C-alpha cells in the first residue's frame, strides 16, 4: 500500500470507522464453482454495456426527422435519412471507434442476456430458488424480463429496416390485446405507427428507465444474496446447512472477479473485431411499407418470433373482443411461460410438502418434478426458437417451408410433453434404483447424502 493511499485510508478510517464493516465485507465467502460465475459474467457485461452505452449516447440522435447525411459513407453521402439512422451511419463511419464500440455494446448485450438466462437455468435446476430464496429468485425473473426489454429497445434504436419491422410487430402485438389494445398501443407509441415520438421514447426507455430499474434491482438482488449468504453444492464432510465454504472476497474472489471482467472485456473486443455485430448500414433505414426477405429479430426473441410463425391461423370474436393468433402466440404464450417460472418454487414446495430452509443445492435428477418441468419448458422454448429459423432451414435443406413449418407445429406440440414425461420416469426410476426418496427437509437431505457416503 503506497504511503499516499495509506494516509487517505487512515484519515477516512478515523472518520468513518471503516475497519469493522470493511472486515465483514472482505471476509464474505464465495463458494467456488464455475456455475457461480455465470451471474458475475452477466453483471460485468452489464457494467461494460453501461460504459459503452454512455459513450454511444454522445453521438446517437433519437429522432426520425429526415436529415441529410454528409460523411464518408458513399452509399448515403448527401442523401436524406431518418436522424436516428443517420447518426448510426455517422457513428460507424465518421466517429473514430464508433463502429467498434457499437459492436462491443451489441456483443456485450448478447453475452448479458445469454448469461442471465444460463444463470437462471442453474438456479432453477439446482434448486437455489427454494426457501428462503424465493424472493431473490423472483427478483431475478424480473431482471430477466428487463434484459429482454433492454435488448429489444436497443435493437430498435438504429431504426434500420429490420428494427422498424421489429417495432411494427411489437406494435401489432400490443394492438392484439383485447379491449384495451388500441389505447395501450397509442399510449406507448403516442399515436398510430410510426409516430415521431416512437424513437425518442424508445431511447428514454433504453437509456434511462430500463437501466435505472436494472441497477436498482441488481442492487436488491446482491443485497439479498449477501444477507442470505450463498447456496453451495454438497461437499463431503461439510454441513452446508450451517456453513458456507468458499473463497473470501479478499484476496481470492477479488482476484478471480478482476480476472473475469478483464477477460470478458477482452473477449468482447476481440469479437467486435471479428464479427459484424450490429452492422446495419447496407440494410438501410426503415421505410414504411417495405420489408426485406428473411427479417428476423435478435436470437433472444426467436422463441416469440417462432411462436408467431408456427401458431396455426386463428381469429375469432368472443365476448366482444378479438382473439387472434398474434395475441395467443405473442402475448398469452410468453405470459404463461413466465407464470410457470414464477409459480414453480411454491408448486414444488407444495407438491413434495418440503419443510424448512434449504441452503445446499440438489441434483435435479433427484427430484422428478423439477427435472420434468424445467426440461419440458425449456425444450419448448428452444423448439420455438428453432422454428424462427424455418426460412433459413428451408433454404439450406431445400425442403419447402410449408413442410418445415408443419414439422415445427407438430414437434412444438408433442416433443416437450414427451421429454418432460421421459425425464419424470427416468428420475423416478433413478431414485428407486439408488433406493432414495425426495428429502422433505435439508437434514433429511444431508442424511441421505451421508448414507450414500457410507455405502460408497
Amino acid at each position, binding site marked *: 500500500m503506497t504511503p499516499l493511499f495509506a494516509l487517505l485510508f487512515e484519515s477516512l478510517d478515523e472518520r468513518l470507522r471503516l475497519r469493522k464493516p470493511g472486515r465483514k465485507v472482505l471476509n464474505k465467502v464465495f463458494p*467456488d*464453482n*464455475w*456455475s457461480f*460465475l455465470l451471474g458475475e*459474467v452477466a453483471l460485468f457485461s452489464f457494467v461494460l454495456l453501461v460504459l459503452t452505452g454512455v459513450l454511444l449516447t454522445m453521438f446517437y440522435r433519437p429522432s426520425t426527422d429526415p436529415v441529410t447525411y454528409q460523411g464518408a459513407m*458513399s*452509399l448515403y*453521402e*448527401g442523401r436524406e435519412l431518418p436522424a436516428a439512422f443517420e447518426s448510426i451511419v455517422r457513428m460507424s463511419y465518421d466517429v473514430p471507434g464508433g463502429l467498434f464500440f457499437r459492436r462491443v455494446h451489441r*456483443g456485450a448485450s448478447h*453475452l448479458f442476456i*445469454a*448469461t442471465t438466462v*444460463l444463470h437462471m437455468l442453474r438456479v432453477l435446476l439446482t434448486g437455489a430458488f427454494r426457501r428462503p430464496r424465493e424472493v431473490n429468485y423472483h427478483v431475478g425473473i424480473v431482471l430477466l424480463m428487463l434484459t429482454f426489454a433492454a435488448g429489444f429497445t436497443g435493437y430498435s434504436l438504429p431504426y434500420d*429496416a*429490420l428494427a422498424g419491422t421489429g417495432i411494427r410487430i411489437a406494435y401489432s402485438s400490443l394492438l392484439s390485446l383485447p379491449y384495451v389494445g388500441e389505447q395501450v398501443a397509442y399510449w406507448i407509441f403516442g399515436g398510430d405507427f410510426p409516430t415521431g415520438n416512437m424513437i425518442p421514447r424508445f431511447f428514454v426507455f433504453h437509456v434511462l428507465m430500463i437501466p435505472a430499474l436494472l441497477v436498482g434491482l441488481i442492487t436488491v438482488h446482491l443485497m439479498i444474496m449477501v444477507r442470505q449468504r450463498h447456496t453451495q*453444492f*454438497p461437499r*463431503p*464432510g461439510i*454441513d452446508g*446447512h*450451517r*456453513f458456507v465454504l468458499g473463497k473470501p472476497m479478499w484476496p481470492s474472489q477479488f482476484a*478471480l472477479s478482476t480476472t*473475469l471482467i478483464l*477477460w*470478458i472485456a477482452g*473477449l*468482447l473486443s476481440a*469479437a467486435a*473485431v*471479428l*464479427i*459484424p455485430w450490429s*452492422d446495419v448500414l*447496407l*440494410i*438501410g433505414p426503415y*421505410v414504411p411499407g*417495405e*420489408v*426485406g*426477405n*428473411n427479417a*428476423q429479430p435478435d*436470437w433472444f426473441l*426467436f422463441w416469440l418470433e417462432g411462436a408467431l410463425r408456427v401458431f396455426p391461423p386463428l381469429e375469432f370474436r368472443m365476448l366482444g373482443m378479438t382473439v387472434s393468433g398474434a395475441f395467443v402466440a405473442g402475448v398469452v404464450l410468453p405470459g404463461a411461460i413466465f407464470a410457470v417460472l414464477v409459480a414453480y418454487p411454491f408448486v414444488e414446495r407444495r407438491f413434495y410438502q418440503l419443510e424448512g430452509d434449504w441452503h445446499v443445492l440438489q441434483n435435479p435428477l433427484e427430484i422428478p418434478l423439477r427435472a420434468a418441468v424445467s426440461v419440458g419448458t425449456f425444450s419448448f422454448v428452444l423448439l420455438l426458437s428453432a422454428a424462427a429459423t424455418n426460412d433459413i432451414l*428451408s*433454404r439450406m435443406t431445400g425442403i*419447402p*417451408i410449408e413442410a418445415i413449418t408443419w414439422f415445427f407445429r407438430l414437434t412444438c406440440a408433442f416433443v416437450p410433453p414427451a421429454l418432460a414425461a421421459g425425464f419424470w420416469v427416468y428420475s423416478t426410476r433413478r431414485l428407486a434404483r439408488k433406493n432414495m426418496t425426495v428429502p422433505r427437509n*435439508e437434514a433429511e437431505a*444431508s442424511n441421505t*447424502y*451421508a448414507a450414500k*457416503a*457410507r455405502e*460408497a
Partner: protein
Amino acid sequence: MSRARLLPVAAWAAVAVAAALAWLAAGGPGPAGAVQQAPAEETPRGDRLYTTHCARCHGADGRGATDPHNRAPTLVGMEAARVDLVLRTGRMPPADPDGSGRGRSWSDRDREALVAHMTALFNLEGPLLGPEPGDPAVGREVFATHCAACHGYTGDGGVAGGGAIVPRVVGLDPAVIAQAARVGPFQMPRFAEGQISDEELGDVVAYLDEVAVEQATPLGLGELNPVFLSAFAALLTLAMILSCLFLAGRVTMFPDPEPPPDVDGET
C-alpha cells in the same frame, strides 16, 4: 487442468471455423463479366450449337413441342433477353430430362453465337441488356423498394414459400440482373421500364457490386442475418463458459460422496 487450458483455444478455433462457414453460407464472392449486344446473324457455329443442344426438344424450327414427355416452349418471338438469361444461368440444356436442374455453363463466345443465330432464325424480340454500373446510392433505394422484399436488403436471397428459393443476387453478371428484372424468369415478377428504368438497373448493379466487396471484419464477414449472428452469440457465450471453467477451481457440481472425515458435519 491442461485440457481446461486448451478449451479457450478450442473455442476460438471454433469461432474461426464457424465464421468461415457463415461466409460460405452467405455465398462468397461471385464472378463478374462484361457483355456486348448480340447482332442477329446466322453462323455455322451457332447452327452447330443449336442442332446439338437445343433442337432435340425445341425442334429445328424452334416451335417446341407439346407432348406430355416434352413440353419445350416455342422459341419463336421469345424475348432475346430471356434466352440469353437462360443460357447465362446454365438452365438450358437441362441436366434432367424433365427440364429441371442446371446443365452446362456456356462460354461467352458460344452463347453469343447461339443467341445471334437464334435471333436471326426465330426473330427473338427485344434488346439484350448489359447496363453499366451507375450510382450505388440510388441503386440501394431502388433495390429496397422493388427487390429487397424477395432478395433481402443485402441481396442475400431467401425463401418464397411453395418450395421456391430466392437466389442470392450479389456478384452476378450485370446482364443477368438486368434481364431477370425485365423478363421475370420462373417465379419472379416482371419489372417494366415504367417501374425500374434502364439506368436504375445500372444503379442496382452498382449497389450489388458494392455489397459484394463489403467485408466488415477480418474474417471476411459482411452484414449477417440475425440467425447467423445468433450462432456467433452462442459461440461467444460458449467461450465465456469455457473461460469460467478455466477460471474456477471447482468444476464438478455434484461430487460423488466419499466417506465423511472424522469432523462431523451433521445438523
